């Protein structure tokens, strides 16, 4: 069966180390993953759950710098056909300098930017400038986002809306029920954008549930946990299995 739903996979850079990140990218490429979200670690990752909090902290403790992350991304983009997104917290970009960061990201071939603590109002410059640097700012919607706000989000975002189907932080299980499907359809209809669904996608059944509704499924902390518990090689088995 041909697969319509695309995949976006996630890595916290420098965790457990850049070599593992590199291997992960090779596995993603081999499994025809369409989008890769690379997280530049931040010490106060307050939108993340325990798996990524730990990954962020250990990466920083290992000495990961923003510069090293950008160098790694540059090198990776040259070798891989996937669309690359940077995910990080606002302060990392702010300290680098908004223009400097976006210019650099654009130059190394970044496709999109996700900043969980920059809602569109506060982050307005970030969203606007991202577009002027020819990258796609990704906006986030939740089941609690009002109709009115959805319109605001749609104006600021590009390419796809990242839908978080539940409360809470990254990493824990999501109860995929019919209301999730309804909301996805509603978002697509209102915004005329593609819809990525993230947070809590852990198994093939979750993808099957989203098939025909969401355009992109985001697999985040599940992959990090596989690396931690079973080793990087098992990520390949996991992706093959869910893509079967």
């Amino acid at each position, binding site marked *: 069966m041909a697969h319509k739903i695309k995949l976006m996979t996630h890595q916290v850079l420098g965790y457990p180390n850049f070599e593992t990140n590199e291997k992960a990218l090779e596995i993603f490429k081999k499994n025809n993953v369409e989008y890769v979200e690379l997280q530049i670690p931040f010490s106060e990752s307050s939108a993340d759950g325990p798996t990524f909090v730990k990954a962020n902290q250990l990466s920083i403790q290992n000495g990961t710098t923003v510069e090293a992350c950008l160098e790694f991304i540059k090198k990776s983009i040259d070798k891989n056909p996937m669309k690359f997104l940077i995910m990080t917290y606002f302060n990392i970009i702010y*300290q680098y300098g908004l223009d400097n960061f976006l210019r650099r990201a654009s130059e190394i071939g970044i496709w999109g930017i996700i900043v*969980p603590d920059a809602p569109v109002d506060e982050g307005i410059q970030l969203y606007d400038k991202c577009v002027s640097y020819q990258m796609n700012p990704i906006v986030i919607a939740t089941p*609690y986002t009002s109709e009115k706000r959805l319109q605001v989000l749609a104006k600021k975002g590009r390419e796809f809306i990242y839908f978080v189907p539940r409360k809470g932080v990254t990493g824990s299980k999501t109860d995929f029920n019919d209301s999730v499907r309804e909301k996805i359809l509603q978002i697509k209809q209102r915004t005329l954008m593609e819809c990525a669904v993230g947070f809590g996608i852990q198994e093939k059944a979750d993808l099957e549930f989203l098939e025909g509704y969401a355009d992109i499924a985001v697999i985040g902390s599940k992959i990090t946990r596989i690396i931690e518990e079973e080793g990087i090689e098992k990520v390949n088995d996991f992706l093959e299995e869910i893509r079967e």
Partner: protein
Amino acid sequence: MAKILEGFPEGYYGEYGGRFVPELLIPVLDELKDCFGKAKRDDSFFEEYYNLLKDYCGRETPLTYAENLTEYFGKGKIYIKREDLNHSGAHKINNVIGQGLIMKKLGKKRVIAETGAGQHGVATAIMAAKMGFKAVIYMGAEDIERQYPNVFWMRNLGAEVISVKDGTATLKDAINEAMRDWAANFEDTHYCLGTTCGPHPFPEMVMYFQSVIGKEIRKQVMQKENRLPDRVYACLGGGSNSLGAFHEFLDEKDVRLIAAEAGGKGKESGQHASRLAYQTGKTGIAQGYKTKFLQNSDGQMLDTWSISAGLDYIGVSPICAYLSEIGRMETAAAEDNEVIKAFSLVSKKEGIIPALESSHAFAVMIKDIETTTKEDIIVVNMSGRGDKDIFNIGEALSDEKWKEFVKQRGDGYGS
């Protein structure tokens, strides 16, 4: 709000403030902002609030003339605002009672809070017990070790205390964890932030509730001296007691407002929590707001140090960052050894035991005293009492008899 703070986009003070939170939290912050907005325009709400502070917490707190200290220095006339005499022993209860009333309006039944020194946690646990809410308090594992007596009280008041081991295991990490809890449970849960930090409307709301301190200071100084004070001192961690004491005087240009930060082991040591006075804080965005943070060039937050857990924090109120920038609020840092000296002097001269946090305000006032004259009226906001700090002060004073006692008690529990 004071005129000096007006004229900016909502939730901003100069370039500082805002609400940098995940999209998920926007609706609940809107809900809180609207609820607080209505309450602050309603005179009967303030009346209900102040009456509860009066009957339950013992307000108004006295303004004590520190006759012996004044005589000892032979300079300005020193008054002490006695927030230590609040129920729970610190100013933190003012804010918590106010947010408890907001919670009732919101119809929420579960309250979460972060705590550093434990004072805000204890205050929240007290409020939850009184108002019939379930309380969950997040506290850094490091702080739990330093402030176990407060943990003991929180648990005995019926609150659940969760130890946060992430990051530096201090206040900032407790805030991150509380934000995560809120993101998962906001439908029935209120986040009772303890200081004038975090996303809008928290800085404004906490300042509003704490501003009862300054309102009383004005009234009391007028009664005693028939004029306004020349200087008001307060310690500055997140900003709740300093803005509480200062807000009333922000538009009174002749009243000098001086905030005392934790100088720890000194500027050069890097082991301190001074963002403004040492000018080591850099503008950044974390924990839901923009302010001066202690951070490295990549934007990763640094470890902070203070002898007092309550001042040991990477950020500072966006309102304080702005007031400091425009020169309306002066800042100075007191080092640990100066703090201990001030603590001893106030205890021995006045029979009043200040918290280590509040001892920073005394220490800076003492450093400045030479620049005052007998005509000057000085108010020190004593944010809390020090007997809660007995373990830390016993250690800081290196009191051998105390250590022996603790050891014996500990041994008594052995095997």
